[in-house]
């Protein structure tokens, strides 16, 4: 299956997707406003633990999927350690470059930020059934079902897409395109051809689907009957609430107590 979602029976699997979405956003906001690396690191660890214990995800697979993140995080850490402009406390000198204490702090903060943003979404995706996500967007968030169908359409399309792309690549290969392509120009031509073919195919299908849907009353009324019960276990809601409270608490505490380190990250300074 093309989705990273694997059915399961963990706490996170059972939690409703809207609560998880709240959690995702909160965790993200947390590391985006946190100035101190210790805070980002704590959030990251909390996210990882949630995934492994509350989501019963395989730790090694999770960490493996995060490899691109580890690399970026490391890269950013090194970059800021050395290039952080307001560094006044050199810790190490490597030739003309100096590693500053502030740089290291900042680098760590950003590294953990990136790690959190990536891993939280991975955990979300691994424990959330896309179909359930759409249904809950409609029933809980009251998203108009016609619009939510754009998402549904994407989900429906993905498996077909995979096969279609494979066939198109095969068909072109047999005609001579796609063999070790000579350089950028040919590769671009192939990509362009593939894209136009896939899009044209998508358009053809979509028009048929639209007629079949309209013929069955799609959009007749602004809402439609729901036939699936929405399960919102209290645990999931509490989980999300805890995170929100933590975030709000952090913001208040640090505003009140004057550590404006979090103000350093956005535009302007």
């Amino acid at each position: 299956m093309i989705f990273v979602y694997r059915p399961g029976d963990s706490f996170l699997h059972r939690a409703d997707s809207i609560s998880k979405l709240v959690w995702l956003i909160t965790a993200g906001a947390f590391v985006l406003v946190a100035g101190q690396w210790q805070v980002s690191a704590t959030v990251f660890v909390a996210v990882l633990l949630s995934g492994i214990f509350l989501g019963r995800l395989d730790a090694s697979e999770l960490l493996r999927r995060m490899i691109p993140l580890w690399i970026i995080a490391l890269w950013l850490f090194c970059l800021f350690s050395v290039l952080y402009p307001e560094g006044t406390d050199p810790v190490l000198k490597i030739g003309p470059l100096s590693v500053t204490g502030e740089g290291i702090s900042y680098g760590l903060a950003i590294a953990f930020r990136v790690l959190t943003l990536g891993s939280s979404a991975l955990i979300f995706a691994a424990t959330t059934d896309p179909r359930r996500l759409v249904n809950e967007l409609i029933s809980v968030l009251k998203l108009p079902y016609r619009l939510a169908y754009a998402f549904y359409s994407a989900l429906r399309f993905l498996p077909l897409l995979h096969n279609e792309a494979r066939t198109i690549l095969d068909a072109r290969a047999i005609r001579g395109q796609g063999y070790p392509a000579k350089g950028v120009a040919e590769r671009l031509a192939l990509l362009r051809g593939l894209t136009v073919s896939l899009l044209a195919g998508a358009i053809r299908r979509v028009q048929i689907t639209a007629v079949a849907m309209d013929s069955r009353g799609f959009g007749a009324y602004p809402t439609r009957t729901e036939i699936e019960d929405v399960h919102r276990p209290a645990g999931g809601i509490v989980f999300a609430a805890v995170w929100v409270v933590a975030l709000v608490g952090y913001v208040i505490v640090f505003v009140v107590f004057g550590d404006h380190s979090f103000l350093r990250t956005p535009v302007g300074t």
Partner: protein
Amino acid sequence: MNAGSSTNRGTGGYRYRTADILLVGAIAAVGGVVSAYVIVPWAKFIEGLLGPFGAVFDNPFFIFWPIVAALLICKPGVGVVTSVLTGAVEVLVGSADGSIVLIVTLLQGLGVELGFLIFRYRATLPAAIAAGAGAGLGASIALLYVFGFFQLGTAVQIPFILALMAGDAIIGGLLAWAIAQGVIRTGVWGGGGAYQRVDRQS
């Protein structure tokens, strides 16, 4: 029935037809998968070499999906919805960049909307380029913020924003335009519109 013709309000204008909604989803699916499997490896490679500035060379390939969608369906909201959905698809398919993608696609989608808004949602080349510039603006701000590059001072920020805007506008906008034209020339996509009842003269 009366003789003569009468026009009924069809489904043109700004209302989304079912086909429009589905197409946004389909483009997001195509975009999400092609992005995740084809473009991201390229992006990693180029950014590995050039650092964040490498984004100038890979971002255009991410942003042209919402522009293509908006060129085909010239209605408000298409740009941002397609962009966010593309990001959502990438996440569900297991992209390691996770929420970063969501933030970037949201802001760049808003940028695409801005571009088309300026040109009043007409499917023209200038609109596509403006949308690309808008996307570049949104994406660069998002990236600068998320990766903490705002710390590196305006000497870094301004060129980055401008480079990304230029890259996205030129490569992204033009590419989207070329692909949309390619699709339009196949004749498979037809707009709806009001129908006319032309009764026979008795």
